[in-house]
């Protein structure tokens, strides 16, 4: 029975590679944008903070699938026609940036007020204080929810199959259409997603232990 799966394993693994590429690219971009949004929300003036907040609330309130359709069907009318890979990465990144920004913002705010006082009391100015005292502690606090968001992101890349990107989910669907072995193939797809996410979680656990310091 699993021979169908074995016969098509390379195709699935090829799709999985695309999924990994998509995930790495969009997660990196999302982390950068999210971090910038968080810094704006915590330290920006009223205007910048307002813009960042509106962005976060808007994006969190719209389904990713809708954003993908908007990019794929609506953007071309405005003359912007992104290739699906780039468009997919951008949409996922912009979407998850909103979640990442909340992760980072929460972590920055979770660094005790007393640490700010201690740094300021030593004459540190904001930039030094942030880079030496606040962010190193905030990033440790952010690590677990950050990984959690990355896991969600990996799974969400399956949605780009609807705009024709041949990643893991779409590869599986095409094989099923050819072989009709839905159970084995989608079982395999699910297993591959699980392995990807589980490995990430394990690595995060390891990282968390290495970065830990007792309070």
């Amino acid at each position, binding site marked *: 029975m699993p021979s169908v799966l074995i016969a098509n394993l390379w195709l699935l693994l090829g799709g999985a590679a695309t999924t990994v590429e998509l995930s790495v690219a969009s997660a990196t971009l999302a982390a950068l944008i999210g971090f910038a949004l968080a810094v704006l929300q915590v330290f920006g003036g009223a205007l910048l903070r307002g813009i960042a907040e509106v962005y976060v609330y808007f994006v969190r309130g719209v389904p990713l699938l809708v954003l993908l359709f908007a990019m794929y069907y609506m953007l071309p009318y405005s003359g912007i026609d992104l290739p699906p890979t780039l468009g997919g990465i951008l949409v996922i990144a912009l979407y998850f940036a909103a979640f990442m920004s909340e992760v980072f913002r929460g972590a920055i705010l979770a660094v*005790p007020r*007393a*640490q700010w*006082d*201690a*740094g*300021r*009391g*030593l*004459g*540190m*100015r*904001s930039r*030094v204080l942030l880079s*030496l*005292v606040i962010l*190193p*502690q905030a990033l*440790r606090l952010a690590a677990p929810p950050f990984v959690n968001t990355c896991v969600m992101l990996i799974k969400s890349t399956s949605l780009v199959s609807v705009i024709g990107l041949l990643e893991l989910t779409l590869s599986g669907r095409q094989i099923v259409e050819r072989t009709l072995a839905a159970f084995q193939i989608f079982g395999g797809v699910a297993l591959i997603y699980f392995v990807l996410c589980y490995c990430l979680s394990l690595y995060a656990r390891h990282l968390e232990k290495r970065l830990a*310091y*007792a*309070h």
Partner: protein
Amino acid sequence: MPVISKSALPTPIEGRAVGQPMVEIRGLGKSYGRSRVLHDVSLEIRNGEVVAVIGPSGSGKTTLLRCIDLLEEFEQGEIRIDGEAVGYRVEPRGRRVRRPERELAAARSQIGIVFQSFNLFPHMKVLRNVIVAPVRVKGEARAEVEARARELLARVGLADKLDAYPAALSNGQQQRVAIARALAMRPKLMLFDEVTSALDPELVGEVLEVIRQLAAAGMTMLIVTHEMQFARDVAHRIVFMDSGSIIEEGPPDQIFEKPTSERLRNFLRRYHRACVI
């Protein structure tokens, strides 16, 4: 009005003129919303002088100290350090403007502050905690700062803990690191904010001893404390605060033996009663 006592002052350090006022606070006032935490506080601290502030919880002692280090904003009055108004400047039209961060930071870097809860940087080892500010704020040479830090840490009895993380230290040790960290900036004024209140009782002595040595070396200090005996031993002058105002100040003997105000008498009576229990 407060009278500055004429008690003997210790020898000055680094050639500073003894008895010249270093900190001059005039008419300091601060509120949180409706509640007034500081009301018309005026106080002078002279070079080499050790001033202890006592008073019940919530009397504004800590806020006063944080105002001097510019960690709190204040609405009224002014603070001068070595004659220079810090924190705010007054524009020609009389508008009070908070000074830019650069100037606040510069003023803070000359003042050492030690907090009740130590506030060491938990992600840095002891040595790095002590050297980070002199190197990154004052731009001093790392090797030089490190030598100084080792010496300071040895002086507070922690020569063997350079590579420990703060979490591995007892709270008394952490507080001594915090003192060394503040001293590494070579401040001209040290502020202590109830530095023994969060310590295990048996570790209070080791921290007080460090402060005592500093006093003997002629460091100018403002000490907010609940340790009455310590205040009496180490301070040249005691300031008693209640409800955001300075009620009484004077030499230790006068404050503890002949308090003139009813509130101070009550405070000391309650304190002694608590000690007996």
